[in-house]
């Protein structure tokens, strides 16, 4: 699992760099087109979605890199053994959230219900009152459920990374370091 997590982290790094660059370019495009009176109406929304994808990719990475903000008042006050046990519990809680997110995405996207409706979005909405597949984006011109896909993806990547974190705790191995990843 740690090998998968390491490979995933490298992919996430590239994706995060690309998305961050894309956000900047989109906003600049907006500035330029707006000031020349040729405003592109879809740029704002595209930039927001790009940023959101970047945020959730980064959210997955920060779990593996242990870079997220937490209150370390109690862990700092504990001895080494107690600190390790506590760290294990925390990782376990993050893993359980990741698995829950996969399940929540499953009941939201409801692939089984969709299959039963013969992959007909209208029939699916009619029978389940779940309108996920009918929600449009305002200006970008693609269905919103494609953009929401980052949520189940986040569930999956978080699961991989938090299992790798747990494996690190059990073996006492040091996880990947942010500066190494930045420099790679």
């Amino acid at each position: 699992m740690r090998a998968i997590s390491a490979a995933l982290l490298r992919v996430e790094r590239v994706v995060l760099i690309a998305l961050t660059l894309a956000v900047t370019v989109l906003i600049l495009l907006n500035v330029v087109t707006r000031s020349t009176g040729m405003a592109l109406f879809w740029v704002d929304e595209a930039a927001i979605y790009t940023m959101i994808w970047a945020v959730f990719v980064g959210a997955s990475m920060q779990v593996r890199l242990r870079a997220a903000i937490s209150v370390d008042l109690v862990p700092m006050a504990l001895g080494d053994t107690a600190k390790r046990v506590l760290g294990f519990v925390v990782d376990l809680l993050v893993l359980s959230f990741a698995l829950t997110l996969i399940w929540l995405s499953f009941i939201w996207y409801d692939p089984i219900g969709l299959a039963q409706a013969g992959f007909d979005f209208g029939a699916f909405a009619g029978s389940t009152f779940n309108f996920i597949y009918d929600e449009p984006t305002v200006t970008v011109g693609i269905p919103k459920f494609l953009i929401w896909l980052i949520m189940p993806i986040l569930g999956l990547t978080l699961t991989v990374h938090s299992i790798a974190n747990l494996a690190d705790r059990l073996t006492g191995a040091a996880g990947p370091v942010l500066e190494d990843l930045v420099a790679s």
Partner: protein
Amino acid sequence: MVGAAFVVLLLLGVPIAFVLAGTALFYIVWSDQTLLLQSFAQQMFSGIESYGLLAIPLFMLTGELMNEGGITKRLVSFASVFMGRTRGGLAYINLIVNTLVASIMGSAAAQMAVMARAMVPAMEREGYPKPFAAATTAAGSLLSPIIPPSMLFVIYGVLAQIAIGDLFIAGIVPGLMMAAAFLATLALIGTLRELPMGSSLSLRERLIALRNGLPTLMIPFVIVGGIVAGVATPTESAAVASVAAALLGFAVYRELDWRRLPAILMRTGLNASIVIFIVAAANLFGWVIVYEQVPQALAAQLSALTDSPLMFLLIVNLALILVGMVIDGIAALILIVPILLPIAINQYGIAPYQFGGIVCINLVLGRLPPPVGAGLFVMTAMTGVRPGAIVRALAPFLIATVLVLLCLSVFPGLVTVLIR
């Protein structure tokens, strides 16, 4: 019960975003509102569907580019042109550069790290006690939450649903007040204790420093000017500033290397996601706050205590410094604003701008005092000075900050004067 779950998760050391999302999940199941489960992931997503939040990665990118591009040392020599042979000259320069950098970096922790590296060794060489050098630098970083473009203001604006540009403008007078208060504190210390003299520069050195430093001033000018003039949104001016920073670094100073760009973008993306992910999770936590009517319950208790806006603000000041000591500024802001802002506006008639300024200064102030002040430990790690020694040297600046906070609490006009 839900409150207990929240506190336990927080104290265990669970990352704050997961504390918020986990508590919301616990609440949904506990209160048997399982219908909400289907929209859980969507709620998390929609919490950050906000144009204003785009400013955060862009400001962070500007800060990273400026760091790598050698901005700080040019600002230091630029500022020294104006100080010359003054008692405590380098200490003033430290504060002035901090004020300028604050308008670029927008993050107290990053600013503290950069400035500690740039200024503390230089001050030590000129003969300042190291704890005093560290304390001056730490005090300077207190300016970052209030001088535009403050990251805390961007998030506050999104949470409070008010224009971030107006918030930036509102921060100008309080920010200058803070800077002036710190300079006055330095002057006072300088007369009481013998601070080292600044070294004087030749005319030629001054001209070179001016020529090198002037272009860097373009960045704060682009950011603040664009917003104040109303021609650009904070997000747009952040994007323009990042281009300006890249141009300076790549073309003018030639200290940036294209091969460093992926690393810069990576750090930007990750740091931005650390902040914005908490905002996303806080949107879930918002369910708990709204359904459980937390603000209403707290308001009822507060109104039994006082009906004076000033008393309310004083209570808030005290409470926030305590919260800021335990929880990082941005995370604390995301937690607190949805609860306290409705009370401030509805029950005490306080303008959201005044409230925002006070909250943001408080949360950064809380980073400095012991026993847990995160900023204090950043400083200790950067300089090797013991926390106790920094705190003693820092005390006059903390007192100055508290005085400014009191002023802002008593005179709301100071914050709102520049807003049209």
